[in-house]
Each structure stands twice: as structure tokens, then as C-alpha cells.
């Protein structure tokens, strides 16, 4: 278990400041939700953490050590679109194996791939399948398995359910919660869906125009928001008046 910490992080693309002096902590073994409208800088912050966006100022650390910008990283990321995050020409087993630490033998790697696929509830005998043979939900599970293959202490999940049908969103969210509990991961969970964040995250940070405008325990922020923008977000949650749900 390790802590993910952003300290005064700023990311600029030319004249646009996508992330502006953001400080945020994901405590060890916890799930922090990051919400905000598109363009508010959520993805950019995530990409900065894994070295895919240029950090102009500030520091990003995992377990107190700065994140290396090349080579193996102690944190992994799961992307929004499971249709573009897997190489269409590689079998899913190869994709997962590629992210594993080097040095293990062939048999060992195969066993590890099988274990990881099993972990995300995929049939390990399908390791040779290409992504095209899988449904969106199954691909997103492969993407999760690949992230876990790097033995990360921290996982960043960027809108991992928003490209999925509602009928499989639930299954992926259930899986995220299960994995987090079993492996004690620290997770930064990015989503624009407050109901989804409420379901998986104990803490939530609200981002707007590249800045964090509010953060705190999820139930507190959702019940008694401090910032106007958070209130606006809450008011905008589309909802059915009386949800049907089994009493249990």
C-alpha cells in the first residue's frame, strides 16, 4: 500500500493551463473519486501522473518517491475506451504479459497471465483471443488485468465505465470494488458520474478549470457541499424520481 500525492502540479499545453497548481492525496489503500466537467483537467492530471503529460511545476510521488518518467512505474492507469486501449494485433495474454516485470520465465509468465485473467473473472483459456473477439466489458477487464500485471501500488482509473453499456457498467464497478478490497490498492477513480463515484469512492475531489475546488469524505461532500460548483454538479445529476430496486 502506498500513497499517491500531487503537490502543486501544473500542466500547460501552449497557452492553455490544463491543470493549475493541484494538490491532492490518495491515502494508502483508499479510493478517491475525482469529478468535474470535461475539459476541467481530470484526464490531464491522470496522464501527468503516469508521465504522459508534461508537468511544468510541482511534484507527483508514490509512497514518498517521485514517479519515474520512464521505465516501470509504481502506478498504472486504466483508460476510458476499451476499444482503443488494447493493441488489436496482440492477443490479450500478450498484452497482459507485456506489462509484467521482466525476468520471469516463460511458464511463470503464462501462469501469472492466467492468474490475472482469473482475478478479473475472465476465462484464462482465452488468453490467445484477440480484443476483437471480446465484448466491451470483457476488454475493460483485460485492461484492468494489464494494469495489475505491473504490480502497481496505485491505480488510476480514468472514466473506465463511461464507454460501456449500463448493463455491464455494474459488473465492472463491482469488480473494481472487489479488487480494491482484495489487493488493498490505492485508486484514483476519475468519473463524471457522481452516482458512480459515490458508489466506489470514500473520498471525492471536485475539479473545475484545472483546479480542485472542493474535497472531502464522499458522504460529507455529497450531503453538504461547500462549493457552489459542487452544488451545481449535484443538482445536475439526472435521476429517476423513484428508483426500483430490490429491498435487499
Amino acid at each position: 500500500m502506498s500513497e499517491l500525492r500531487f503537490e502543486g502540479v501544473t500542466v500547460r499545453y501552449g497557452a492553455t493551463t490544463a491543470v493549475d497548481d493541484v494538490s491532492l492525496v490518495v491515502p494508502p489503500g483508499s479510493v478517491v473519486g475525482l469529478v468535474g466537467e470535461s475539459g476541467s483537467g481530470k484526464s490531464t492530471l491522470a496522464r501527468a501522473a503516469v508521465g504522459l503529460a508534461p508537468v511544468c511545476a510541482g511534484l507527483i510521488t508514490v509512497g514518498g518517491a517521485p514517479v519515474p518518467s520512464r521505465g516501470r512505474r509504481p502506478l498504472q492507469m486504466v483508460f476510458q475506451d476499451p476499444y482503443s486501449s488494447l493493441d488489436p494485433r496482440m492477443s490479450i495474454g500478450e498484452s497482459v504479459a507485456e506489462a509484467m516485470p521482466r525476468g520471469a520465465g516463460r511458464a511463470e509468465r503464462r501462469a501469472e497471465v492466467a492468474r490475472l485473467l482469473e482475478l478479473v473473472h475472465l476465462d484464462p483459456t482465452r488468453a490467445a483471443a484477440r480484443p476483437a473477439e471480446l465484448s466491451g466489458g470483457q476488454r475493460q477487464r483485460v485492461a484492468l488485468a494489464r494494469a495489475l500485471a505491473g504490480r502497481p501500488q496505485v491505480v488510476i482509473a480514468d472514466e473506465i465505465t463511461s464507454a460501456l453499456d449500463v448493463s455491464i457498467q455494474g459488473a465492472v464497478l463491482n469488480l473494481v470494488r472487489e479488487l480494491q478490497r482484495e489487493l488493498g490498492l490505492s485508486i484514483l477513480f476519475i468519473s463524471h458520474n457522481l452516482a458512480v463515484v459515490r458508489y466506489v469512492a470514500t473520498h471525492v475531489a471536485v475539479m473545475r478549470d484545472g483546479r480542485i475546488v472542493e474535497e472531502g469524505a464522499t458522504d460529507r461532500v455529497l450531503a453538504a457541499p461547500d462549493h457552489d460548483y459542487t452544488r451545481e454538479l449535484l443538482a445536475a445529476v439526472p435521476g429517476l424520481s423513484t428508483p426500483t430496486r430490490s429491498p435487499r
Partner: protein
Amino acid sequence: MKRWMSVLRTPVGLTATVLSIGVLVLAVVAPLLWTDNADAIDTDDILAGPSAQHWAGTDNLGRDIFYRTLVATRLSVELALAATVIAVVVGLLIGTAPYLLGRRPGRVVLAGTNIAVAFPGILLALFFAVIFGVGAKGAVLAIGFAGAPTFGRLTQTLVAGISSRDFVAAAHVAGVPRLRILFRHVLPNVSEPLVVNATIGAGAALLSFAGLSFLGLGVQQPAYDWGRLLFDGIGSIYVNPAAALAPGIAVLVAGLAFNLFGESVAKGLGVGVVGGIPALPPSPEALEADAPAAEQAHGSGTDLVLDVRDLEVAFPGPTGPIRPVRGVSFSVRRGEALGIVGESGSGKSLTALAVSRLVEAPGRVDAARLDLLGSDLRVEETKAQRRLLGTSLAMVFQDPMTSFNPTRRMGGQLAEGARHHQGLDRASALARAVDRMRAVRISEPERRAHQYPHEFSGGMRQRAMIGMGLMGSPALIVADEPTTALDVTVQQQVLDLLAAIRAAEDVALVLISHDVTVVGEVCDRVLVMYAGKIVEDLPAADLAATARHPYTRALVAAVPDMDTDLDAPLAVIPGRPVDPADVPAGCAFAARCPLATARCHAEEPPLEADGTGRRVACWHAGEPIDLEVDGSLLGRDEREEVEAR
């Protein structure tokens, strides 16, 4: 491999393949068989015309031009291939440099390439010919280097396209070194278009060689290629035209063969060829000045904007037609908001495309009725109909990435339709574009209007596209998953915007979404689609409390909301959606349905209306479901999804 074989099935593809193979075979065997015939000097018979003995006549030493042309195949093809290899290798180096070197040095390489590409190839070749000297070696280098920039730029574009994909980012994050990523992920995914373009390049190189040799800058005596033969033949063209004609035809046939082969492979594989312009989907546009068309229909007494009966969309499949939409009937009244929900693959988008006449061949649309504002959309497309569609129907697409031209500023792209259809001048069209961009809550619309699509985040691009759909004032807006990638606040604003327009201008809205909450919020009425059919049609207000179809009820229960129990796993719909190529008998939902009985598996339930106008297709509509949301059900679902492959 199957796709490669399909190339052979077109007449042009087959001809080109046969010709190309013929040329290559000739290149191998001709010098072995006929070198003696070609080199035989016969001083008694110089500069003779075609005869039974010498089909294409003889040259100034009495050598047989026909045989010389055959034998020259090898050198010509060899030189062309060598030049192509140089072009490809140098092109690959140039093309992958920006990726390997990073942003700044990459930009320098890019700029250099752009300048080089702008020069006409033959000029570059002449320039290099002067540098490398006259002769075969010089010509190979010249043509190779002259071809490199074009190929380099193609590689750059392809590599940039692939390297922006998430799987490359994922490999980076996994710590895979750049060079390895290039060879494992990037190059394999761009290899098809590269190979195809290299083939076409070989054809071009062949022609260039002929050109250089013809100018006397290529192959020198005593060696000869087709260009050299052409050069010699032209000298005696008045004595024996065949002497120039034979090598000329050879160049033409071989060049054409390679070119056509490449082109047809490109076509068969769906690969772009350099210089090709990506097709843009038709821009949704509408027209204020043409409102009378709508008025007319309105005046004709009917309140229906859209009336669809028994709509079917079919595509040819390997074992008979596949029907992703199977008999859909619904209508939309003026000012009404109709939602269509269902999982991906249920036929929602195809229904929308059929209504907009955007289903492309080989897809087929059939319907008992398909009326937009009283005009039959099934008849042959006429000018009046295009106008009607263009002016009264606005389509907002799901995918914002492919809907904009990457090389043009956003403001101009929005303004274009308005200029064209509403006759606005440049300035007012742009002003309206900015206004619409503001309306869809794009911050600083004046500045943003001057930006290019890639400078917008995904969400903003989507908002801009909705703004584009709202440039005119349509009678019907068909929005296909318009807010799927948007966050709640923007989603709300967009939905509010659609609602405001609907109220103010009495526009009907068909909103397609997989998110039942969005549809429930915005629409008056909701159609639930499953496996190409409507399974339930009900007022949106009844979705949460009194939906009667098990599928509708499962969709509602599968989304977490602000009251979801945090300690229990979410409800999931077991199994997978139906594959339209393999629709089971009976109720299509039976395999996933908690209420399914033997009758469900045998008989398909009809869509039946009750007294209140609600429709539902289910044998057990409204019967209680015991939604067991606990570990055991979850475990079963997980297994089923895996087993269902």
C-alpha cells in the same frame, strides 16, 4: 488473409495481380532464356521495321528489339525495386523520427519533410541525378531519395495516428521502451497501408526510371532498361516506330500493373492511399429560409413529424441477410421528445440512420411506411427530398472525433452549413456559430472558434457537434448518444438546451441513449429496444415505478444512483446481448430473463398495446421479479459472460 483474397475477386484486382505476377516472372526468366537472342548482332539487318522474324524490328546494330524489351524487364524491375526500397527505408526513418525523438526535434523533421514533399518528384530526381552522377546507381539513389519524403510523411501520419491511441499510452505506462513500442505496437498496425503504398510507389518508380533513362540520365550503354530502349528507339522513330513503342508499352503495362495492384489491395483492405481525402460524414444542417416546407406539412392537418411502420434494416451476411432492425413501428408528434434506449447492438443507431437515409449500401432499408413531415422517404431520392432532409432534420452523431475535419478551424466548420443553406454571409454565419458554441457552453467561444478540433477536449468536441446540429432550426432533431461522453453538468446544459429549443420552436426530438436515466429525464415517451425490436413503449415518467418488461426493469436497476446501497454489489444483467446474425427463436431476451418460461423460448411475444397507449412485448409483463443482488447471482453472471464468449 481472407481480406487479401477478396482483392482477387474484383476484375480489376484480378487483372492487376495477374499482370504484376507476369511482370515479375518475366523479370526472372527473360534474361535466362533470351539474352542470346537479344544480344545477337546482325549488321545486315539494322534499323529494320517489324517483320515475322523481328516482331518489333531491330536497332542500329541489328539487334532484336522485342527480345531486348523482354530481357530489359529484369533490370527495369530491379532498379525500380531498389529505388522503392531506398524510398521506404529512408521514409521509415524520416517517418518514425518524430515519434522516437520527441516533440521538438520531431517538429524540425516534420517541417523538413513538408518542404521536401512540396517539390515535384521529378525535379528532386533530376537534382539528385546531378549530385550522384549520371548512371544506374545515381538514378536509383535519385529516385529513391525523391520518393522518400512522400513515404516519410505517410509514415508520420500513420504513426501519429496509432501512437495517439490508448494502447500505446498503456505500453508507455507499463514501462516498455519507445523503440520496442515502435516495433511491437506501432509498425505492425501501420504495415498494411505502408505495404500497399510501397507497391504503388514501385509502379511510380518504374515510370520515373523510364523518364530518367529516356533523358539520358539513367542506365548507360551497354546495359539497357526500358527507358534506355525508349531513348534509343525515339532516335529512329521515323524509321521504325515499333522500336520506341515496344519498350513504351512495357513501361506502361508494368507501371500500371503495380499501381493497380496496390490500389486494389488498398481498396480491398480499406487502406488509404497517399493523397486520399478522408470522407466526412454529412454535416447535420438545417435551414431557416426553407421553413415553408415544414409549414406545408404542418398545414396539411397531420400532427406527425415522423411516422415509421415495420422498419427493417438488413445487411448481407455469409449465411443469408442479417437483420439488426426487425420491424420497428413508432411515430413522433410535433414537439414531442421520444427516447430510444437499449444496449449497444440493439439497433438504436441503425433506426436513426434509416430515418435520416444514411444507411449505406449494402445495407437495405424496408418499411411499410417511412414518412417525414408527410413526405415518403422510401421513394427514390429526389432533390426536393434531399432539401427536406437537409432542412427539417438535424442529426447529432455519437462520435465527435470523426465528424470534424482535422485541418479546419471549428468556427468555420460550424458556419459552413449556415452559409450554404441559410444564405448567411461569412461574418453572420461565423457569429451564429460562435453563438451556438456559447449555447452549448463552450467557454470563450470567440477564441475557441479559431481553434482546430484537436485543441478541443473530447467533451468540448461533442458539444461543438451538437452546436453544429443546432445551426439552423430543424423540425426534428435526431441525437444519437449525444451526451454519452459528457459530464453531468454539461450533459444537463445540453439537454436543457435541446429542451429549450424544443419548447421555443416546437421541434421534435428523438434522443438515443444507452443511459436510461438520461432518457427518462428528458423525454416524454421511451421506446426500449432489444435485439432489433421494440420491447416496451411507455411514458418516461413510468420508467422507474411501473415498467413492465423484465429488460426495462433490469436496465433501470443496473445504474447506480444517489440512493444505491453501498454495501451490496450492483445488479447486473446476466449474459450478453443477442448477436443480430444469430437471433434465437421465441423471445430474444429469454436467455437472460429471470421470468423466462418454456413458452418464452418457443413463441415470440408480440408488441401489444394496452388501453392507455403503452405497448409491451412480454408473456409475463409486470410479474414480480426477485432481484437477488448478492454474491451468488454475481458469480453466476460473471461465469456466464465468460462462457458466452
